[in-house]
Each structure stands twice: as C-alpha cells, then as structure tokens.
C-alpha cells in the first residue's frame, strides 16, 4: 500500500504518532483531538455568540439614541477569567501527562536505551542516514521495520535542518554542534514521505526524505542488500560510466562502497539505483532522469550545491547507466 504525503485532512483523521491521535479524531486519548476539538468548539462558540449579539442588538434605522450605559459586571468577568484558566490548566496537565507517558518523546536528551537506530545528518540539501548498528549509509531514502519505535539521532553538517515525517512522529531540529533525538514509528508497511521543516537555504523545498516501512523480513533483506558493496556493472556503457566516475572529480564528493570513491560531501551512491528518487525528491530514479540530472543539475534542482560539469551527451549517458546499475 502506498501513502502519498497526505490526501486532504488525512493526518487529522489518521495521525500515527503516539502523541497525535492514534487512529481517529474520536479517540479522546489524544492531545490533538482535545486541542482541535477544543479550539473548534471555543472559536465557534465565540463567533456565534458575537454574531448573535451584533444581529440582535443592531441599531434600527433612524434610531440615534444611546444604549443603556452598562460599565461592566465583575461576576461575569471573573467567570470568563476563571473558566478559561481551568480549561488551560487541564490542557497543560493533559499535555504534560501525554509527554511523559509517551515512550517516544525524548525531546533533547538521549533516552536510557543507548545507541540510536539511525543517525540522520542534514546537509544542504539532502539527508544522510547512517545505521550505526548495521553499518549502512544511505541518502534521502531510508528503510525501517514497521510498527517499531525507531530511535533517531539528529545532527547537521551545515545549517539547521529539521527531519519531519508527518505520519511517523514529531519533528525535531537537526542543529549543527548539537545532537537531538526523536522516535519514528510507522504503524504499517508502506511509503511515507517527509520534508525538511526548518528553512535551510536555496533548495529547502527539495529536501524530501522518503521512509519505506517494511515487515521485519523484508527489512532484513534490504539490510543485507545495503551491506553488500557495489558490484561491477555488466553492460559496456555502464562500465564506461564507472571508469568516468572514478577518474573524475565525482569521487571528491561521493562515495561508492567497494571502489576508490570515498567522498562524503554529497550523497552516498553505493545503492543509488535502488532508491526511488534522485535529488531528494525531484525526479524518479531511471536512466533517462539520471542523464537529464547529470547533464545540468542546476536545471533540475536550481540551487543544488552540485555544479554543472558540462558533461558531453555521451559521458552523461554512460554515467547515468552506471549509477542506474547500482542497485
């Protein structure tokens, strides 16, 4: 089953994070339901009241007289001071209870459990995902086992970013020089799209992470595939591309496990062909799109830090074939 980021009001009715309403707005053990319901009721109440007052007490045509001069009413005013106060106290206690009761709201500090499952490093304008326990490095697309709390450590290599997976959990900033933590939890297998939520520069818009939640066995297969170094390509064109890649400046920024390419400035490309999208969400991965991207990255994703290398048609084509083969 595929999830697009959202169909209209999807999150409102189907938020999946612990704090945000487990499955339905009707489920009252959810701070979101209380807040949204409460806000809706209170705003509607005030607006309807006001509408009634202004219609009921409108001046009739030709009536120039003044209204009865009422200066106030202490009891009433005390009432609308105390009542909202109690309501807000209730909201505060409820939210605090939620925050502490929830196992998945670590906020700033590392929970006692220890090593994170994934270290997410924000870069201008792509995501690096490192699995310290599994020895996997990937970019922009990451896989997780479904229905499991994933402890995520958030870092940044340059400016502040913010990993936001709307259906999987709260957002937490990736702050350079500081580590934050959060949990992600995908309720069922599927695709979950996300975004960078903290403005980070020119291509803040195209910094879209993709989470793929899988059953444990599928996830294990993915882990195994990711742990394998890149194979040498079969086709002649792709072999040509490999040679081009390794003999040019590509290797200064990109890494491909099993080759001499060890750069860490740009995304790890070891399994780039297996990822669904390139350029952090701009295009789907296929040879044609890779070719288009390599020919002029700035045209595909204006503001991307990868320069235009002015490759010839033939070079771009060969490189695209090679990258596409990296499954």
């Amino acid at each position, binding site marked *: 089953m595929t999830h697009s980021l959202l169909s209209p009001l999807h999150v409102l009715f189907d938020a999946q994070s612990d704090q945000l309403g487990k499955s339905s707005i009707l489920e009252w053990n959810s701070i979101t339901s209380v807040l949204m319901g409460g806000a809706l009721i209170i705003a509607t109440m005030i607006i309807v009241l006001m509408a009634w007052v*202004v219609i009921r007490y409108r001046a009739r045509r030709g009536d120039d007289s003044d209204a009865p001069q009422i200066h*106030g009413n202490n009891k009433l005013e005390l009432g609308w001071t105390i009542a909202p106060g109690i309501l807000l106290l209730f909201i505060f206690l409820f939210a605090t209870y939620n925050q502490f009761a929830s196992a998945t709201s670590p906020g700033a500090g590392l929970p006692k459990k220890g090593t994170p499952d994934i270290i997410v490093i924000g870069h201008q304008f792509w995501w690096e995902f490192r699995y310290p326990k599994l020895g996997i490095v990937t970019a922009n697309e990451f896989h997780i086992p479904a229905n499991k709390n994933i402890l995520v450590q958030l870092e940044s290599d340059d400016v502040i970013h913010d990993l*936001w997976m709307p259906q999987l959990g709260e957002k*937490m900033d990736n702050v350079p020089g500081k580590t934050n933590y959060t949990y992600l939890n995908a309720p069922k297998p599927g695709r979950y799209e*996300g975004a960078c939520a903290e403005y980070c520069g020119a291509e803040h818009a195209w910094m879209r992470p993709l989470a793929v939640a899988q059953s444990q066995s599928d996830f294990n297969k993915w882990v195994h595939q990711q742990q394998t170094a890149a194979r040498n390509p079969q086709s002649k064109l792709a072999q040509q591309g490999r040679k081009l890649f390794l003999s040019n400046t590509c290797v200064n920024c990109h890494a491909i496990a099993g080759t001499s390419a060890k750069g860490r400035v740009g995304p790890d490309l070891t399994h780039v062909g297996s990822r669904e999208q390139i350029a952090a969400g701009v295009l789907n991965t296929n040879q044609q799109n890779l070719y288009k991207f390599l020919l002029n990255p700035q045209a595909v994703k204006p503001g991307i830090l990868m320069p235009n290398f002015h490759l010839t048609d033939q070079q771009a084509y060969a490189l695209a074939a090679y990258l596409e083969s990296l499954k």
Partner: protein
Amino acid sequence: MSDVSIVPEHTASLPSYNKFNGLLEWVSTVDHKQIGLLYLFGTFFFFCVGGIEALLMRIQLAQPQNHFLSPQDYNQLFTMHGTTMVFLVVMPMLLGVANYVVPLQIGARDMAYPRLNALSFWMFTFGGLLLYASFIGGGAPDAGWFAYVPLSGQPYTSNPGMTYWAIGILVSGIGTVATALNLVVTILLFRAPGMSLRRLPLFTWMVLFNGFIIMFAMPALNASLVTLAIDRILGGHYYDVKAGASPLLWQHYFWSFGHPEVYIMVLPAWGIISEVVPVFSRKPIFGYGAVAGSTVAIAFLSFAVWGHHMFSAGMGTASDLLFSAASLLIAVPTGIKIFNWVATAWMGKIRFTTSMLFALAFIVQFTIGGVTGVQFGVVPFDRYTTDSYYVVAHFHYVLFGGTAFGLFAGFYYWFPKAFGRMLDERLGKLNFWLMFIGFNTAFFVQHALGWMGMTRRIWTYPDYPGWGVYNMISTVGSFILAFGVLMFAVNVFYSLKKGEIASENPWNAWTLEWATTSPPPHYNFDQVPPVRSRRPLWDLQHPDKADKD
C-alpha cells in the same frame, strides 16, 4: 456639542504637500500629527511593497512544480515580505497611529520630545530604505525574517543581503525605541488636568504598555543584530559552530525579542478595537478595569513565553514545560479582552459603519488566530505543526486578520479627524467585504495545508493530492485581498477630494481627540474640556448622567 460644532476649513492646519514650501514643511516637521501621517504614508508604501512580494509568492505557489520564480528569488521575497511587514509596516504603522492620536486623546499640545519624534521617523525611513538598498547592493537578504544562524552567517549566504538586513533593522529599531520612549514620557507627564492614569482612554493605555514592552524588548533585538553584524562584518564567532558556538544562542536572543514583538504588534490594535466597539455600540467599554488590567498582565507575561518558538530545537524537557505553561497562561488575559468586547456590543445599539465592520472582523479573526495560538503552547502539538503552513495561517490570522483589520478600523475611525472629510462608506463597505472574503479565502485553507504536511518557506512542492487545489484557492484569495486594499487607496484619494465634510465629532465619540476641530490646529486644542471621567465628552453631552469614573 457635536450638533452645533463649526465645520472648519479642512486645509486650515496642515501644509499642502503640492507646493514646494509645503513639502519642505513636511520634511522638516516636528508636529506629532504630521509625523503621524508621515508614518502612515511611509508604512502604507511599504505595505504595498510587502503585499506585492506576497502576491509574487502566491503566483509561484498557485501550482505544484511551478517555475514562475527561481528558489533564490522566492527566498529573498519571503524574507523581505516578513521583514517588511513586521519591521516596516505593522509596528511603525501602529506607532504612526499612536503618534497622531495619543497627544490628542490626552489633551496634550504635542509629544514630550518633538524633535526626537522627527528623528525617530527618519531613522525608521532610512532603516527601511537601507534594507531595500540591498536589492541594488548585491542581492536582498534571504535567510528568513528571524535569520536563524548559521544560515544567516557569512559562509552560508551568497550575497551581502543579510548585512543590509542587520544594519537596516538596527537603524529603524533604534528609531522605534526612541518613539516608544517618547510616547511613554508623553503619556506619563502630559495628560490634561483631571486625566488620572485610571482615566486613560484604552487606546492610550495600550500604547503606554506597548511602549514599555518596546523599551525592554527592542534592545534584545538590537543586541542580536549587533552580534550578527559583528560576525558578518568583523569576522566574529558568536555563531560560528566550528569555533564551538551554539546556534541556539541566536534563537534565545531573537525570540526573547520576537515574542514580546508579537504583543508589540497587537496591543495598539486592541486599543483601537477598545475605542471603536464602544463608540459604535453606543455603550462604554464593558469592564474597563479588566481590559486595562489584562493588558498589564500580558505586558509582563510576554517576556516569559519566547521558548515556545523553540520546542523542536531541543531545549530540554524542563524549559519546554516552563515555556508551555507560560504560553498557555497568557491566553487567559487575552481571552478576557475578547469576552469584554463581545459584552460591550451586547445590549448595545450597534452601528454597522465600515470601522465597526473591521472591528467585528478583527474579533472573529483574532479569535481564530488565538485558539490556534493556544495549540502552539502545547509541546507535542507544536512539534507537529511548527514550521508548517498551520503556523503561517496562525500568525496571519493574528497579524493580518487581527492587527491589520484593527488598523483599518482605526483608519476609518480617525480619518475624518485627520483630514476633515469622511471616508466614503460605500467604497468602505466594498473595501471591507473584499478584504474580509479575500483574507479568509487566502488563509483559512492554509490551516489545512499545514495539516496535510506542507512546510513553510518552500518555493515549490510536489503534486500531492489536494495541495494544488488548496494553494490555488489561497492564491485567488490573496488577489481578492489585494483588490480590497486597492479599494482603500481609491477611497482615500476619492474622499480627500470629494468626501463629506466631517464635523468635530462625526461619530459622537467620547474621548478628547473629538473635542477639537477636524483636522485639529497645530496647537491641537483651543481649550481642553474638563476631564472628570473616562469619557469627558459624554459628560459634556449628558451632564445629568455623567460617568462616575
């Protein structure tokens, strides 16, 4: 009394700006009324510029994967839009109204320091022009209006824009501090005999506390700007992560100004509503003490809530909860005001003038912005919705649906006083309805977009289901809104020439500014009427049932 007031020659007191001498007199003026109007002209100009920036962004966002603007252009536009609206429109526009109205409301001849007042205005103007000079000085700022480091630092910006930003805002910020100082001293020392602090008109009361907030919040901004400028120009390391600095320092710095700033941008608008609603309901304000007292509470609390901008920055649970509690608490005094305004209209005899319509729309829209504001005080909720279009919708409901509508209520209310002619009511109604419909069309759907996962400050977005449609609705709304604002400009031009001549007190209002000619003479009052209550003109009109307080 209003029914026998003499209709003045409407050009009697202000020099004409059509003549060179007149223009020179405007430039060199130290009269609070002229400076107030200069503020309003200047800020309205910037309002149009900021509005055009917004429209360009809305065109870009009307469709998914649109290429009307480049990301670089878009980022400069939203930075300039936010900066312009906050620093060059809302705040100085409110100060402009205060400049014009406050001395009149308290029966003063002028501000305490008229020359300082002129200096403030020109600092605001030059600060604003310096900011806009960045467009020809290598590129506009592009790190957002709250300029988070390290993105706003030298290594991550491609142009000198952020340096213009820091210095421009600093210059206009010093001007703002001077104006606030001026207003506070004026209100504390220059009131008419009999006008004790407890008898201050509510607008003046709110301006007084607004002045205090500015005096204590703006220096925090100025210090932040100084540190940013030192980093950018002198190669300092306040925010250099590699040297061991912390980006959170800037966030604390900026928001300890930035959240009081939100109240700076709304307090005087509350004051306007507290003047307009009673006058057009033909009743005194319901619970003067509660409205005035809650303002004081807000002035203090506003300095304790800035951390709710940082719930997802990783401050730690203790700070999170503290700021959450304070942020929820501040909703209580805010709620009091809304209830008191509604209660003021209750049992009234409501006149649906354009000014009143804007005030009523203010109450509706501010309530919506207020309840979403409460939601942001709750940590887990905030971590979900922050930096999404839900926030964008929220603060536009507060700042546009709230403050800007309040300002328009004020414009329609005080225009006759300032220019001696009424603004046309038919054009006014058209102006109001276009703005009301346009505003809500443009911004209500943004709540939904936020829920659907649309983050703010993105120059384009993938074609997710519903996003394109909602964004298109928002864009259409923004153009209706712009058309509404255009109607206001048309109304002003039309009414300045052809508007009905205004009497001294066309609305039959009760505060002192209505006890002098429209427009007032340079020296404001021939004679200030005696002040024995909060409504001196009511007492004059109804000596038999004068107010007690």
